[in-house]
């Protein structure tokens, strides 16, 4: 699963019949996630009713098909949850590789920085 921001919606009328009336959400991931193509976005089916601007968790692969309700629909990703709050320990990202790092100008809307060194240390507070 990956964390991203829903930034738009996609409409199509000519499509594979199994896509039916599924709502398609355009999501930009916050972190690099090993996409199958060199793209900076992904299109996910939204069955939870996310709105543009919200942080969402996107489920990839076969479980994403289950989440869409029909494992035969030709999709790769679906929105699994709408995020209320994200907590990241500030220090834990300081030495992250560039492609795994959060970008200063594109941070999760639900992000709360915490000051612990690691997530474990943060939880023990």
């Amino acid at each position, binding site marked *: 699963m990956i964390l991203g921001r829903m930034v738009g919606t*996609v409409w199509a009328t000519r*499509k594979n019949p199994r896509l039916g009336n599924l709502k398609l959400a355009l999501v930009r991931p916050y972190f690099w996630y090993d996409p199958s193509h060199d793209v*900076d976005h992904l299109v996910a089916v939204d069955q939870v009713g996310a709105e543009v601007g919200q942080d969402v968790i996107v489920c990839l692969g076969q479980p994403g*098909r289950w989440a869409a309700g029909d494992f035969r629909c030709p999709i790769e990703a679906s929105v699994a949850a709408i995020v209320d709050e994200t907590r990241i320990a500030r220090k834990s990202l300081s030495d992250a590789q560039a492609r795994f790092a959060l970008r200063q100008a594109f941070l999760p809307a639900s992000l709360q920085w915490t000051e612990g060194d690691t997530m474990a240390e943060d939880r023990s507070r």
Partner: protein
Amino acid sequence: MFLGRVVGSVWGGKEAASLGVNKLALVRPVAFPAHGPVVAVEADGADQPLTPALKIALDQLGAGIGEYVLVGHGSRIRDLTVGPFLPTKDVLVAIVDSCHVDPALFPDADTGTPDASGVTP
């Protein structure tokens, strides 16, 4: 699945027999750059910037050049759309009418360093 734009088509003089009469479309993924403005993708609207990548996808929907499409990737997508015996992993699953993106949700300036391909993240 990603948004792309059909930029051409490919024909083979000799093709794998299982490919049959299926069309192959050349698709370039749409880029949503961290820098610069983002415009809404419309069927006949302004040009959205594209990434340098070039993909060849099986087209059973009859997409024309210049149309925005949704491309699914993977053997499961292929099995579910065109059947298990076609030698491809990229399949067009939809022809996009419109895609509305809120420019306010994109950063105006990015302090991160884009990849060599110019694609982030």
